[in-house]
């Protein structure tokens, strides 16, 4: 038995000198690796797809649909979109894909999102790979230092994400036109865009920063009944934040892919009326 007078142990973690001597990193018998593997695979697939589409600078507009990856279009080198989000704020000097200018905001929002942080810390960084499975890193400082201390900027990306969601809502309204820009029409793409925008709003509003801002920061709910009610609604959405994160990630990718298929001529948008 230890007497309490020994110097502090030099080993770290579950193999430390004072811990129970068990050689294995973990003793879990379930398929603990499945969840982080699926998460990493899903995120990697989206990163590869969105990188291809963001750099492609082509097939992102087929009237009346604009890809969510390219909206709003902030440079002059965009396809003209009648009534659409052609906002040439930065002028003509930008030579790369205009998607790169706008994607940084939703990317920042998702990168600093509390759910995605869990997902990629577990899936890619193995910190930890799963509960009670020892991580492979010798040192750990968490989010106390640069660059991970920047995760605290999540609320600013949330504000930007609200603007982007507003613009995508505008794009969805524009899908109630036909190829000649006449209003009062609807196609399969309209349905795709509608589903996408509902999921984007649900994900954005279910954000933990949103929950904090609308009411979580209060000490006395009873003095702010409206904010308390809003907080209750956001809390219900927030309980589904992970599911909404995945659903909206898939839907935004599918909406872009739909526009790609129509714009590249691979598929004709079925018109309902």
């Amino acid at each position: 038995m230890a007497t309490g007078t020994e110097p502090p142990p030099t080993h770290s973690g579950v193999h430390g000198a004072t811990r129970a001597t068990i050689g294995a990193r973990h003793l879990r018998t379930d398929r603990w690796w499945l969840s982080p593997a699926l998460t990493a695979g899903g995120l990697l697939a989206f990163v590869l797809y969105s990188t291809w589409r963001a750099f492609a600078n082509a097939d992102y507009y087929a009237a009346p649909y604009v890809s969510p990856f390219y909206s709003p279009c902030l440079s002059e080198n965009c396809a003209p979109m009648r009534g659409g989000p052609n906002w040439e704020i930065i002028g003509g000097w930008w030579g790369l894909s205009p998607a790169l200018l706008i994607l940084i905001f939703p990317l920042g929002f998702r990168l600093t999102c509390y759910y995605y942080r869990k997902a990629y810390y577990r899936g890619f960084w193995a910190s930890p790979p799963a509960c009670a499975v020892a991580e492979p890193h010798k040192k750990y400082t968490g989010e106390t230092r640069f660059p991970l201390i920047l995760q605290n900027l999540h609320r600013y990306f949330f504000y930007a994400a609200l603007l982007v969601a507003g613009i995508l809502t505008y794009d969805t309204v524009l899908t109630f036109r036909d190829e000649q820009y006449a209003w009062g029409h609807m196609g399969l793409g309209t349905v795709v865009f509608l589903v996408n925008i509902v999921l984007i709003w649900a994900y954005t509003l279910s954000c933990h920063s949103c929950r904090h801002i609308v009411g979580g920061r209060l000490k006395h709910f009873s003095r702010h009944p409206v904010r308390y009610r809003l907080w209750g609604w956001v809390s219900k959405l927030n309980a589904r934040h992970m599911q909404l994160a995945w659903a909206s990630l898939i839907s935004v990718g599918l909406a872009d892919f739909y526009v790609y298929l129509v714009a590249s001529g691979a598929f004709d948008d079925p018109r309902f009326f």
Partner: protein
Amino acid sequence: MSSYQAGFRVWRGDQDGGELEDFTVEVNEGEVVLDIIHRLQATQASDLAVRWNCKAGKCGSCSAEINGRPRLMCMTRMSVFTREETITVTPLRAFPVVRDLVTDVSFNYAKARDVPSFVPPPGVAAGDYRMRQVDVDRSQEFRKCIECFLCQDTCHVVRDHEENKPAFAGPRFLMRVAELDMHPLDAAAESGLDRKKTAQEEHGLGYCNITKCCTEVCPEGIKITDNALIPLKERAADRKYDPLVWLGNKIRRRGE
């Protein structure tokens, strides 16, 4: 009643060394892992050390790791395992072992003492506290904690990095800070104690990377990460990283 013989591997030893020992032990319908450990004690290993008390999931004493997962032995039904499965029981692997299944959890009591307690509101006698239910709902969820320390055990910040123990209070005590910061009558701020600031600077809130293992293992089902740690991180962000809040505080202070 159907009984069967189950294979158990139980860690036995102390800080000088130890190993997993194999046992075959009778299991009856409706039993939990703690029942089997008690049967082992009664029939095959009379000197087996195990800490337990209520056997009802309320005292938090019988925390251990069962098949590598931090759990209460009294709340883990044998029916969740197949009859062919060998069940491995070890002490909590984040804390110094004392003997067999008993660990030294004094780290947690030291961290508990580091959190300044409730600051009574000035001018209100103890019996005159009045609070609306909606204002205490959040804190009451955290009061369900039974101090089993499974969240502290599974948190990789200290489980995998002994050197972080001085700087990191762990999820249970960050939740305590959140509980007090959300308490409608806590007058810490008025007395000059900024719990949001201390959460980050003294209790190591920044070490938490919200991977939610604490929530996964909590036997009381407390949403530690979503309802305590993330709100606390957002409150710290208000305090340290939000220039608008900072400016508002400056203006308010100049006006006082």
